[in-house]
């Protein structure tokens, strides 16, 4: 009776949980790394082109946010179709707003 279906399910869940924990650790370390790289890049602003640094730190931010969303907020898991739709919908509107405000010429 030790190996009935529910015991197997519990075992599978535990294994899944273990792997999930590893994912969390790896994402966390990577996020710390992206943050440090972004700050370090700004510290080096005297020797590197400002434009390159700007592109680099914005990329670091986006990559870090992807890790936060997909691993910490579980968007990589199944049943996250609508959450993705909502978030990307919101992000698209936000992006358009930023683009239009940045390119408005009559402010300056």
């Amino acid at each position, binding site marked *: 009776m030790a190996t009935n279906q529910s015991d197997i399910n519990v075992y599978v869940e535990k294994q899944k*949980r273990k792997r999930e924990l590893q994912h969390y650790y790896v994402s966390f370390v990577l996020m710390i790394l992206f943050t440090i790289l972004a700050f370090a890049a*700004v510290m080096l602003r005297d020797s590197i082109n400002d434009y390159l640094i700007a592109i680099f730190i914005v990329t670091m931010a986006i990559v*870090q946010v992807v890790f936060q*969303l997909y691993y910490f907020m579980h968007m990589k898991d199944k049943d996250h179709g*609508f*959450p993705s739709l909502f978030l990307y919908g919101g992000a698209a*509107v936000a992006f358009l*707003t930023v683009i239009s405000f940045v390119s408005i010429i009559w402010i300056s």
Partner: protein
Amino acid sequence: MSETHTSIEKLANPEKATLEGKNKFLGFWFFLGGETVLFGTLFATFLALRDKVASGPSGPELFSITTTFISTMILLVSSLTSVFAVMAMKDNKLRQMQLWFWVTVLLGLCFLGLEIYEFSEYLSEGLGYKTSAFSSSFYTLVGTHGGHVFFGILWISTLMIASYKKGITTVTAPKYYVAALYWHFIDVVWVFIFTVVYLLGILGD
């Protein structure tokens, strides 16, 4: 009582075990989509007005890269502790969940304290809310984020106080899960704030 107790232990995802829980989960993500738009407009306003310092001080004159770095690390660690809290919730370990959520709250308070200190410094340097277009858009963007941190602290604290009585059930699990999502979202917004406001601000100097 013991029946509900054993049943929740077998659930892998107690937050989505009921229709109400599923609805809360979906509804909360819809709300986060709206929050994204809210912060998008605040970022857009800030980006359009950040050079309009009038006669007041500019951002790079005031910003401290060390303070920003410490705040960032505090919030990033608090994001991990709330992940641990949700993991403990899924394992039906109430004490562990409470511990990790309380650590999250504590880190949130540290972040908020640093921000208040930072704002009071700026204020004494002559950057009031109405000093310039830059100052208004800066305080509105960063302050709205700080307000979210404050709300998150209140929310998680009250949930935790109630958890001593209510424990982890299919009714309370969605609440804990959704509060953790909110906390992660606060960190997502902060990533853009430290990049766009502080780092790009210092860079553009």
